[in-house]
């Protein structure tokens, strides 16, 4: 069987490699998805002064630790990209593994946080603030989970020196997930 590649992966009218163009398309749609959600939250937050009371129950220090974790995982993701550019597949795989570790740490902290909140009665149906809180952070967490799984496949390939260009693509996605959290953190935790 010949190793024919689909034509779309070799053709590029934009001057951008097709996989990278694809990830920019995905992120362009993500901007509207997360932006719409956060925009709606922000507008309601301003229109509803009583939300300040509910917002005062979010745990700033947990959000802060998670911000640090995601920033660090973004750093290891970009180092993985750098290693892949130099053709160092094993090093890229190792750095991706660190990034996955960051994702898992983030998710564990998130589970701990949500457990405390749900036990205290702050569930997704408690009121509209908490509905937004769980929807926004939950959608973000789904992105973290998806990214970590895909990164696992890419790391295995990279370790064998295959498909190294994918390290950059998953990196771009991962940085976007980081950027979303950069905005979620002040919106959900800092603005009391």
């Amino acid at each position: 069987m010949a190793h024919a590649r689909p034509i779309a992966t070799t053709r590029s009218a934009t001057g951008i490699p097709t996989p990278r163009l694809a990830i920019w398309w995905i992120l362009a749609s993500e901007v509207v998805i997360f932006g719409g959600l956060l925009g709606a939250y922000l507008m309601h937050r301003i229109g509803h002064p009583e939300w300040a009371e509910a917002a005062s129950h979010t745990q700033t220090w947990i959000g802060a630790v998670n911000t640090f974790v995601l920033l660090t995982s973004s750093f290891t993701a970009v180092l993985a990209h750098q290693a892949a550019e130099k053709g160092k597949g094993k090093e890229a795989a190792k750095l991706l593994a660190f990034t996955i570790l960051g994702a898992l740490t983030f998710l564990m902290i998130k589970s701990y946080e949500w457990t405390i909140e749900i036990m205290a009665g702050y569930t997704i149906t408690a009121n509209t603030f908490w509905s937004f809180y769980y929807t926004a952070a939950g959608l973000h967490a789904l992105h973290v989970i998806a990214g970590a799984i895909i990164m696992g496949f890419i790391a295995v390939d990279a370790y064998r020196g295959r498909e190294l260009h994918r390290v950059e693509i998953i990196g771009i996605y991962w940085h976007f997930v980081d950027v979303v959290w950069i905005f979620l953190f002040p919106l959900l935790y800092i603005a009391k």
Partner: protein
Amino acid sequence: MSENNEQRDEHGHDDGHHVNYFKIYLILLVLFGISVIGPEVGAVTGLRWITLITAFGIAFVKARLVVNNFMHLAWEQRIAKWLLASSLILLLLFVAGVAPDVMNHEGNNWENVAAKQAVERGLAAASGYSEEEAESEGPLEGVIASGFSAQNSFGQICATCHGVGGEGDGAAGAALDPAPASFIDPVFWQGRDRDRIITVIRDGAAAVGGSALMAPWGALYTDDQLEQMADYVMSFRPNQ
């Protein structure tokens, strides 16, 4: 996004894009530190602009650093930037179009009654009841959804007929026949124990041959909460 980012110039035309990633990471960490400490300073000094700038202004600076240096958008073909910019513009159009209606609760010829009531209820709850209850949308939802306290639940549900002091003198109970039980009456407690109280709260008085006017409330409480409710009712019992 603004153009006032001083980290930008040093690699603006660097086609090899040798970014010092560690340096960017350190800058991000410092900005992160400021975004955590700044709002604390803002809260202590009461200067709201400090909170806004350190929390939200810095978020934009951090996002820009990540997008340009980690995602390498700074060196990407222009079409990718336009693609993302189109999304952002659509988003801003959406927000700008909806914001006046969402953020205000009344206009020239309209009034958002539900939103106004929600604000009123929320603020009243925040100042009146305990902290946990402030999230409540209504009396019943408040008890179920937010932090549970037998005393608060009694006050919101039982007291309407049995009275806040458990004397059977709640406003809604005045017209009932038979009258709501008074928990401070020693006669009432003859032959009634904790298990029976739990059963009646859960299944209604009709379940033990009493008045159907005492409705079953089991759906509102967990087993543990039922016991707490019973204990609270028992606390009215005289001579204990």
